[in-house]
């Protein structure tokens, strides 16, 4: 078990190493001046008007909430799909009912306009 997952861990470390080394090389090799104008945030040539950590549209938040619900449902579907050949017709019907409930929720969201974006 550990032996099959150990390469994954090593790969993660190697990938991090690649990133750190390349970034360090870039920081070491790339030289240039640092005056305040150059370090100011890009805003099409204007001085920054206000703090850029501004309020943002609540619909992004809504998308995140919907994402959590649906992603959990997918996580729930995975073990079912893998064991499809062992659970037979009973498993199919049970998941059919679950999906029907899910679809009711989805239709509700749709009708309520949670998926609108304009």
């Amino acid at each position: 078990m550990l032996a099959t997952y150990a390469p994954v861990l090593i790969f993660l470390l190697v990938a991090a190493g690649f990133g750190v080394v390349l970034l360090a090389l870039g920081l070491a090799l790339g030289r240039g001046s640092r005056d305040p104008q150059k370090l100011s945030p890009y805003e099409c040539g204007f001085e920054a008007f206000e703090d850029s950590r501004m309020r943002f549209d609540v619909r992004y938040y809504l998308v995140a909430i919907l994402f959590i619900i649906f992603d959990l449902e997918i996580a729930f579907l995975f073990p079912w799909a893998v064991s499809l050949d062992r659970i037979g017709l009973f498993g199919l019907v049970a998941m059919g009912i679950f999906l029907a409930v899910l679809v009711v929720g989805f239709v509700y969201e749709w009708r309520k306009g949670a998926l609108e974006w304009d």
Partner: protein
Amino acid sequence: MDWLTGMLADTELRLTAVWAALPEFVRFVLVDLFKILVVVVPLFIAVAYFTYWERRIIGWIQNRLGPNRVGWEGVLQPFADLIKMLFKQVIVPGNANRFLFLLAPIVALIPALAVWAAVPMSESFVIADINAGLLYVLALTSMGVYGVILAGWASNSKYAFLGAMRCAAQIVAYEIAMGFALVGVLMAGGSLNLGDIVRAQEGTSVLSWFLWPLFPLFLVYFISGVAETNRSPFDVAEGESEIVAGFHVEYGGIGFGLFFVAEYANMILITALTATFFLGGWLSPFAGVPGLAETWIAAPSFGWLAAKMAFFSFCFLWFRATFPRYRYDQIMRLGWKVFIPITIVWIAVEGVMAAFEIGPWAAGI
């Protein structure tokens, strides 16, 4: 010549002795590092030449030349770009969070490279033959969004912030369509191991690939893949005409380069996964054709996987050169109101197919 062969044999003996003297753990790590390099180095070269071919092919489609000056027909262009990027100043904006700002490109790069651990290259070569391979792939591709959010937040710039918000919402929306499509693949494949999914498509001919029974899911998966990697026509996250470059507007030099490598590595990953899930991975399309049996054409090999990946990579560039950019509300509508219903319906269809033992479920459930 005798002394040369003698010396070589001597060196070989000594190296074998050194290798045998190493503890088993160290040997394991060394073999593993070698395997990782065998994947990562060609991946970097593939990324480099993907950028080159992108510019050349789009150039040809738009009736111009593309880069053709550095080296023969411009083949050294990617290396010139890399050297230029390394020597450019990495500017950290004055009011940015310095640590997070520098961390973000690394966070974006790690999952883009490390996902390849679970992707089988051929019948026998995969770095980590883990039984939850598909879960690992999904987990790491979802991690990619953290790099984007971190970059957008740490930059403390309006364009970067807007780009990161758009990008994150788009990625999570299409991840659901992708996840549902993968549930369909799992129903047909019966395993989370990517190698086993390919083996489940082994059969008499091309007709046993999942492409046919799961055709709508194939379309949804590939188009979601294009949207997941924020590629044109779904590239509102870096729409030049609206928010300049999106989340990486403040990055220059190698910081930008790392995001670039991560994006292209993710694109190549999408092509590899599409080939694995729907087009039989390393299996040959000519298997089972009379007269070709026992020849290399019908034999499964890495070459076939590479050919399928090359085709889908070309599709990425073709889309970019052909389609105008979607509007943001159209993107969200396509993800939520078209793809998710299609996938749910097709999962139900697959359930019926399984109940009546049609297609991949002919063996009975």
